[in-house]
């Protein structure tokens, strides 16, 4: 790549209020880290609710988690961890200016994210059939605990909110593919890939906490 083309490319992505690409990159990255902190606090509220009710009703959690399908939960964990690897590889490709590799890795990540959602859909559907519905629609008789509805309220809130984050991640990665195909991303400017990757790792980490806390209690 010649010197002039780098300069031209730099101009196209550098916003007016930044002095250079480094400053812009560091600012964006820090912004995403700060955002991830807010995400942790956001989920933290639900984790607090989980902890409080688990401390009050330990039996409830032991009984109710039996209804969750550990096998498919484990598969989903593997799927998400795999997608974290591919998103990291996408960042690597972008750093090395391998746009094709970037796009392929993004496609694989999107595919894994969809797999996660499909498995989640079947898990939800299976529970709905049994009558394990969220909130006051709950009418399952199989758990001999009067607060069983609360466990599943927490379950649906946590996994539902996590699912929404997965969907947002899919949207972001489709946006990245579009950008990459337009040749906007290159080794001199891969900020969107980097920060989307950060976001995706957090979505993954939250699931890694959700899986044992909800599925693997006994």
């Amino acid at each position, binding site marked *: 790549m010649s010197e002039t083309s780098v300069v031209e490319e730099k101009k196209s992505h550098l916003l007016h*209020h930044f002095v250079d690409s480094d400053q812009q990159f560091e600012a964006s990255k820090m*912004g995403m880290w700060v955002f991830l902190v807010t995400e942790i606090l956001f989920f*933290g509220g639900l984790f607090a609710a989980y902890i409080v009710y688990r401390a009050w009703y330990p039996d409830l959690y032991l009984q109710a988690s039996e209804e969750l399908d550990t096998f498919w939960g484990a598969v989903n964990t593997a799927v998400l961890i795999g997608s974290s690897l591919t998103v990291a590889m996408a960042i690597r490709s972008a750093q090395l200016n391998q746009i094709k590799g970037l796009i392929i890795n993004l496609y694989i990540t999107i595919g894994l994210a969809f797999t996660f959602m499909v498995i989640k859909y079947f898990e939800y559907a299976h529970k709905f059939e049994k009558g394990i519905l969220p909130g006051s629609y709950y009418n399952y008789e199989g758990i001999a605990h009067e607060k069983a*509805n609360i466990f599943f309220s927490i379950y649906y809130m946590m996994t539902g909110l996590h699912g929404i984050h997965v969907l947002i991640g899919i949207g972001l990665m489709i946006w990245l593919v579009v950008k990459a195909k337009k040749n906007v991303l290159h080794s001199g400017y891969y900020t969107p890939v980097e920060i989307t990757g950060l976001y995706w790792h957090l979505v993954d980490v939250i699931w890694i906490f959700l899986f044992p806390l909800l599925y693997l209690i006994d």
Partner: protein
Amino acid sequence: MATEESTANVKRVQVKRFKPEEYPEKHYLNQETGLWAWMTTVDHKKIGLMYLMSVAFFFFIGGMLALLIRTELLTPARTFMDADVYNQVFTLHGAIMIFFFLIPSVPAALGNFILPLQLGAKDVAFPRLNLASFYIYVIGALFTITAIFTGGVDTGWTFYTPYSATTGGSVMMMTLGVFILGFSSILTGLNFIVTIHKLRSPGITWNRLPLNLWGLYATSIIQILATPVLAITLLLLTMERALGIGIFDPALGGDPVLYQHFFWFYSHPAVYIMIVPGFGIISEVISTFSRKVIFGYWAIALSSLAIAFIGFLVWGHHMFTAGQSSLASMVFSFLTFLVGIPTGIKIFNWLATMYRGSIDMKTPMLYAMVFLFLFTIGGFTGIMLGALAVDIHLHDTYYVVAHFHYVMMGGMVMAFLAGLHYWWPKMFGKMYSEFWAKISCGLVFIGFNMTFLPQFIMGAQGMPRRYFNYIDQFQSFHQFSTMGAYVMGIGFFIMAGYLLHSLMKGKRATANPWGSRALEWQTSSPAPLHNFEHTPVIINGPYDYHKPMSEFQLGIATSHNGHHGNEHVSHTESKTEQV
């Protein structure tokens, strides 16, 4: 590598003096005009002004609701509205004033305008996100307004369960509105933190950061740490109403006290979101109008952070009577007292700054004095409420109402007004009438004390808050209080009058009408579109009034941008070619 870095550290930056242009032809207000340009602007100054208009609008609405409340309370029984309407009116007064005025007023309105100027930056780190946060605020506001017209809300601004989960009206719409609004607050905080870290002009080290920015920095930290918890709380409450998830509703097996814990984990730090940026403004104003170096720079800066930190550990003092364990109450009570320490440090440092200064009692300084007086009363009564035994007597009485208004209105709103009057010339390039400003300030001060001092007495005698009826013995207090509210209202109308007059026909302001050394005054009024025509270079602290003005108007001489963190501008290096 290490040697390379150390040579980079002493890289010389050529600086020269840039005198701000007086009465500029072109500035941010007359460039990129037109409705569409304003609505899509990413300029932090214009976004700040749009926020300012919005918060002024909501302050007006909230204020009118307050007058309705006070008018209703003229007589012990029904005066002119029904009890149900009264419940909705005080709920809306609280929710609108807190979520739509107090929280965004200093950070989003004044902070947006002033923060990049004080850093010598062209904009905040994420200008488009900044615009987005404004529209998120507007969407949240639309939800709230819809809630008002589709049944209203009568839960009080705290939305306590189980009442809020079962009562009629548009609680869901309202909580969704506040939920959305929270994201606006989070994004503003995020933007400010990154901007302060990454976009400082050469020479603005952490110990030359204006105290206003320390205040905004501490505020932003609270915003990003506390607001997400409010978001999840309100989401759970919304789900409680939509699906009956039962986490907070005892009828479904949930726990209403858990809601209170969640709510106050946000809402106590939230009162510091409201007051801490006010502290920043007061520091600027007191130093500027005392013509003196601020006393105890680091004490003031760090006490803001200390308040932000302790603020996260005291939420339980709202729940002394809600049935939490007495051990928890004792711990929360003790921690609450600790807040008094950094706050006291601030007050004493401000007083020490004024001591032997040459005080110029311009309107912003007058408001700062009002702030000191009222906020100190608010703070001390807060200590009494934090004392466990006393609080059992005073809990949920008018004493709490008075304390809260002394802190929020007497503290925060006065600081906001000090800041508004202080930066008004920079915002609009116009001066306002000093005479009318002082009259208005006096009326607000007198009216405020007339309104809320009697409420301390009433509260101590047992008048409960939020009640529609009251026994006859409180009538004279209530009537005096209502009178005060009207006096205050007149004060605010005068303010609206002279500020509008200033916009239309005010005298043009010079670049630095207060003779301040701070960076935002070293550019023309109103500021240019990109804040500075040069890259400013800072070699002195923002309050070094003993040094000549010329040393505060330096910028990089060459086209080289010098914006890297590793460039160190020292005093000696700057002595090159001053024009």
